[in-house]
């Protein structure tokens, strides 16, 4: 056995030899959005390939209908460049876990400290019923959006779209679990607290049926982008923020509850990020140099459909505003604020809010 021993480099460290591309230390297959690629772009862009970037052999396994793993027609929206989108929240695994973990720590600390001081026992009696029935019902709405977005993250044409949808799903599912466990824990301190009442209200209470219908309509859409759009552009401002910020966050403290607002507050911060991601993506589509008119028309159709459902949902929830003993905020004011909010969001996209 003889073979010539090859001469290896003495060091494998950068800079220990100079030769062509010995200094090529950036991913050079994609155009960063700004001058330099962000860390998010480096770990995200082009991980999901496609025949345009860079599948030389096309998709090599197909569904029985002949379509490959990812196709553009999973949504009715059109784009001259699906790859342009970058999520403004720049989320990748590390930032996602850091953020989710911080929220879990905050929520658990608030609940534990609140319970330690006996706070749930001093909640107003009527407010306890509201938490039991209505916050209890609301957790299912958040869960429905989470599962819907979990479904949607399978379908987008690029890694950037799917990962933004995935983190949105993760935030929603975390929130639904946070609410579930929060109610279960304070329920142990409140005699007679019925932990199953929330689901009953969700399934049977007349006031919640509009919300359930709106959520099920999003869950049932076969268009992943419609699911993402309807969640963040329509449902969240008209129903989500209305109920969370316009009711729970503002009414809780005057009814002796200082725990619910911080538990819920994380959802509002989550939404700001998810909204920014969604608007950025939809903005690209409504200003697309080839398909702007098509997309605008499509999105206006989604607005019309989901606003009608969301309006019905919001109207169904209206009586809840009159149930607490202390009523620091009126439904009409909260509603006016959420209408203002959606108008602003739609304005960014050149869309209009249909008249009721």
């Amino acid at each position: 056995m003889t073979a010539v021993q090859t001469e290896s480099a003495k060091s494998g460290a950068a800079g220990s030899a100079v030769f062509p591309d010995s200094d090529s230390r950036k991913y050079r297959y994609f155009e960063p959005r700004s001058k330099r690629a962000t860390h998010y772009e480096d770990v995200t862009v082009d991980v999901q390939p496609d025949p345009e970037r860079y599948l030389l052999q096309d998709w090599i396994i197909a569904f029985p209908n002949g379509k490959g793993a990812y196709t553009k027609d999973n949504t009715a929206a059109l784009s001259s460049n699906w790859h342009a989108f970058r999520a403004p929240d720049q989320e990748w695994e590390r930032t996602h876990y850091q953020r989710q973990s911080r929220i879990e720590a905050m929520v658990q600390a608030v609940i534990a400290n609140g319970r330690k001081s006996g706070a749930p026992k001093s909640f107003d009696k009527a407010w306890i019923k509201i938490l039991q029935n209505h916050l209890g019902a609301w957790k299912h709405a958040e869960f429905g959006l989470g599962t819907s977005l979990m479904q949607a993250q399978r379908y987008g044409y690029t890694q950037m779209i799917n990962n933004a949808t995935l983190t949105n799903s993760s935030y929603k599912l975390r929130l639904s679990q946070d609410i579930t466990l929060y109610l279960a824990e304070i329920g142990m301190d409140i005699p007679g607290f019925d932990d199953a009442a929330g689901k009953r209200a969700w399934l049977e209470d007349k006031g919640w049926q509009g919300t359930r219908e709106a959520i099920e309509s999003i869950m049932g859409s076969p268009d992943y982008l419609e699911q993402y759009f309807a969640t963040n552009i329509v449902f969240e401002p008209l129903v989500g923020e209305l109920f969370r910020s316009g009711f729970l966050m503002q009414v809780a403290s005057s009814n002796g509850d200082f725990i619910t607002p911080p538990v819920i507050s994380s959802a509002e911060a989550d939404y700001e990020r998810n909204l920014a991601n969604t608007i950025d993506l939809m903005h690209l589509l409504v200003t697309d140099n080839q398909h702007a008119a098509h997309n605008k028309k499509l999105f206006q159709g989604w607005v019309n459909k989901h606003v009608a459902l969301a309006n019905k949902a919001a109207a169904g929830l209206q009586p809840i505003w009159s149930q607490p003993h202390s009523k620091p905020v009126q439904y009409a004011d909260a509603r006016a604020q959420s209408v203002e909010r959606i108008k602003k969001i739609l304005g960014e996209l050149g869309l209009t809010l249909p008249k009721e």
Partner: protein
Amino acid sequence: MSGTLTLNKITAQRGISVGEAAKKIADLGWNPSYVQEAMTFPTDYKITKAPKDPMKQVLRSYFPMQEEKDNRVYGALDAALRGDMFRNVEPRWVEWMKLFLAIIPFPEISAARSMAMVGRLAPGEDLRTGFTMQMVDEFRHSTIQMNLKKWYMENYIDPAGFDITEEAFGKCYATTIGRQFGEGFITGDAITSANVYLTVVAETAFTNTLFVAMPSEAARNGDYALPTVFLSVQSDESRHIGNGHSMLMSMLKEPENHLLLERDMRYAFWQNHAIVDAAIGTFIEYGTTNRDKNKESYAEMWHRWIFEDYYRTYMLPLEKYGIKIHHDDVQTAWKRLTEKHYVHKVAQFFAVGWSANFWRIEAQTDKDFEWFEHKYPGWYAQFGEFWKWYEKLSHRGQTNILFNSDVGYVYPHRCWSCLVPCLIREDIVTDEIDGKLHTFAHELDRWTAVEAFAGEYQGRPTPAMGRFSGRREWESVYHNVDIADAIKDLGFVRTDGKTLVAQPHLRFDQKEMWTLDDVRGHILKSPLQTLREMSPADREKHLAEYRKGFTINPCN
């Protein structure tokens, strides 16, 4: 008194148990009555029994646990730099990471996508949190691996190849094998892909070789980063294995699923063997410089993890549920790894095609020969001369080994099923799909493409089953094209416009580096198209010759 008091005891308050928490969370779901969810992921399986979650998973504890794991990973990466890891790392090893890390983030994120599929199909919500965690885990794996690759690119002596990584993944004749793996998780029958192929087989059986054996070898080559990242990745897998097993148990309850399960276990085991063993076997055996005879060979590790652990303790017990297990397939895979030198033939194939790659492959030398012969008796007689040729032809001015007729290597046919070429020459089979001739590495590969991936299986309609598609034979893309033009088209050229990204050596000296001019003048051919163009008689003759194999000429 002070001995009995702890802070926990002082501050503890009544809480809900993990079991109770998981139960309440599982009750978040409901059956929609206003709008039904579209059944967008087709399956031919019937699932009526809701899968249970034996692990009682909740997100409240999941996120902090993962953050802590991340902190350890990133801390270790910083420490590796402070400890000047790259000064002592073996370039032979890191070069193969250009291939491995080009492939792996796509299968990982595909696994995240596939959680949508099983999440929608599984009745009940007991396992929803498990699927959610797996979805986020896979997002973690994909981006943490991209981060590791970026880290290598920034700190390793030769960043070329890392810098084009995801583009290279879509184009290279070696990564095509990895795409078969990743697309297999998300395309076709949702249960076949997302449950059996991904979770029940790939994750339960083969992640041990991927994420445990690989890191051990990395550490032996001075690379402490890969073990840090991949053992952290592997720590998520036990939850995924639990998800897969729970779904599997639900499906077993329906006797009409049994035929499909038999089919899918067979397909998934065989193809995981063909793909994962080809790639990981090569990285471990040929990417290392450590030739300690006391360490386990890839084949020995395979026997421990795949044969003893997976086959005996996971697959075999399925028989009691009425699933036919194909014992012969496991034995055949084992024989391919040992007697038929499967991994060595794959490494030889990768080396022959070095110029169309995007990483450096160094020749094996005397020290390696001894180890291979010790671990795989008979290795030297088959492969020794080849590697001597490879070293000899690694110098500029020599004829590229791919086209050098002095060597005696015969370029192989590509398997239409696993996309690894038909390297165990005597096992090649052919068959037609839609009237077109195809080549297969083994009868089981033919069965996979022709019988399993079809609209009917043993008389039973299987309308949800996927189909093999695209230009599966990589070579046909560059049929009758000069290799230099192909390399340029692939983008596997450094930014000076002439030096190849790939090199057949580890000499970091510009004078030694091959350029387009050094390889120009040789035409690539598609073995399949050539075969199809033959008359039936010539074809039979060709195949008979092919089955006889080839002999490498002595290298003087």
